[in-house]
């Protein structure tokens, strides 16, 4: 039996947060709160222990087994602590075509970890994840909640060095396609097209349009 008496409940001093989360859902849908509650624990403690699972179950009037069943279904709740910097390497096709396999191999060697492991100091952990939804700026690495896009060899090194110093750089966000770079001027009509297309458009106009 989980001895909650020996572990201070996580939400004991976070009543406002708890109320806010529970308040997002109707009474008959209280169970919906299980995911955000799990995430709060995951984020703060880097994993969700059995004691926390039991605590969340008690809050929502569920069996601990039900909460565990939900928690274990997903890739981003962990039963064992992840590192201070949890490196999630996107490994699906677009990123693979941009070198994700090599990137992951490199990280394994560099950090001395295999995917699923956390290092002894609890600083880095490594996980191969599936498509992160940034396929046009591949390869992509997610560190905790932040996306680092277009992680080339050189840029990875600078990222790792910063993390080793316990500094998390701002996200590397890029926009490609219609908006070549962040902070571009507001677009309107044809002028919004990428230069190459605008040239094409002009050429096509001359030829009578598509």
């Amino acid at each position, binding site marked *: 039996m989980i001895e909650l008496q020996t572990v201070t409940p996580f939400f004991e001093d976070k009543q406002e947060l708890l109320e806010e989360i529970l308040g*997002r*859902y*109707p009474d*008959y*849908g209280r*169970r*919906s*709160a*299980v*995911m*955000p509650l799990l*995430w709060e624990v995951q984020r703060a403690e880097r994993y969700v222990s059995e004691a926390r699972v039991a605590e969340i179950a008690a809050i929502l009037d569920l069996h601990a087994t039900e909460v565990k*069943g939900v928690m274990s*279904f997903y*890739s*981003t*709740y962990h039963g064992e602590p992840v590192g201070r910097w949890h490196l*999630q390497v996107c*490994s*699906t*096709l*677009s990123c693979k*075509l*941009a*070198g994700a396999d*090599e990137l992951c191999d490199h990280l394994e060697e560099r950090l001395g970890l295999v995917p699923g492991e956390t290092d002894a100091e609890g600083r880095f952990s490594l996980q191969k994840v*599936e*498509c*992160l*939804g940034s*396929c*046009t700026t*591949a390869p992509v690495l997610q560190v905790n*909640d932040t*996306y680092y896009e277009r992680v*080339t*060899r050189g840029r990875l090194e600078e990222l790792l060095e910063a993390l080793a110093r316990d500094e998390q750089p701002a*996200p590397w*966000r890029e*926009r*490609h*396609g*219609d*908006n*070549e770079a*962040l*902070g*571009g001027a*507001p*677009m*309107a*009509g044809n002028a*919004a*097209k990428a230069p*190459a297309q605008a040239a*094409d*458009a002009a050429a*096509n106009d001359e030829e009578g*349009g*598509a």
Partner: protein
Amino acid sequence: MADAVAERPKPITSRHDPRFEVTLYRYVGVEGAHTLDAYLEHGGYEAARKALASEPGQIVNTVKASGLRGRGGAGFPAGVKWSFMPPVDGRQRFIVCNADESEPGSCKDRYLMEDDPHQLIEGMLIAGWAIQATKGVLYIRGEYWHAYERLTGAIEEARARGYLGANVLDSGFAFDIVVHRGAGAYICGEETALMNSFEGLRANPRLKPPFPAQAGVYGLPSTINNVTTLASVPHIVEKGADWFSAMGTDDSKGIHHVQISGAVARPGVYEVPMGISYREIIHDLGGGPSSPAKAFIPGGTSCPLFPYDDEHLDMPMDFSAVAKAGSMLGTGAVIVIPEDQCIVDAMYNVTRFYAHESCGKCTPCREGVSTWMPQMYRKLLSGRGTPEDVDVMEDVAKNLRGTAFCPLADAAAWPIQASLQYFRNEYEHLAQHGTPLHPRKDRWLA
């Protein structure tokens, strides 16, 4: 009348068409465009005002007339889906935005949510009005943290200034949105699994019927739409159904977002009219293959690949045309596969994705997709495979078609079948020689 018919303008099916204007993605990439003030400055929430002053049924008809089809991959006509909602009977109703974008190759929803969140909020608001749902559920994949922050910030702004809440824009209509984060499961993109996940259950898909309109979120009438589908709604209301249906083909109207990745010079998201050819997408917008290409995936990895040839490049981005050619339009995520990429290795990568994401509810997917297929690929790729193995893979893929509880098994098996259809030689090479026709090369850029 004949004259009117003859004079009906040609549909817009190319980016080169001067009539085409980037609309949904107009402010993506623009710093500061995500704020309410910025949104209002360029006419934000005017469409909502207009909608709230009309009958809900009218809005449904407008969306029906526009020809808007779901942009999450299934392509179901949005207006028709809205009309499935039962008459208002006092029970709570929900409009659910499926922002669990996880189809490999897809990233169009993310930028929209990060840089122009109010557009989506306005779309949900109008959709809520149309189907008389006072609650919006925005289910966003957990990894999209930045988008989540932008959305919640935008919702707070909207609430504070009367664009959401008990009395939206003084219309008497109450509408609010709860944003619920996923936690890393592709299956949550399936609408019934999404609802189970939202309800705090394991995210297995549900039986249909009953359909969400009859028994959805918490068993209550609900409609689920994709991000871009909903984000199109304000523009349709503002500019009219005809504006939308002037773009695209007979079968597939309006605006689409192509996400090009893989071996192309200019990967990125491009807003295009439906009906645009794959050639225009890959060559014009994408800048052409960065190295000789041999195949491309037309709409996300759930869609069988095509060989990179004229016949397939000239195909328009149109639901029925792509279906007729033996694949699907899907989410419009185009992945270009270079000549020197072993197809077997690429398909193993894709198979491993489905293996990891299988929910485990039904036998063929849990055992076939999640266990057996990856093992067969590994055997082949490790050099220990035989020609009989290739036959078994083909047969197992066939057994996975149409037998599982939800389409995930089909999404895994159909592309495998296509890869065998067009690139069997690569499988056989591995089976006979133990080495790939195209050995692995380092693709990681310096």
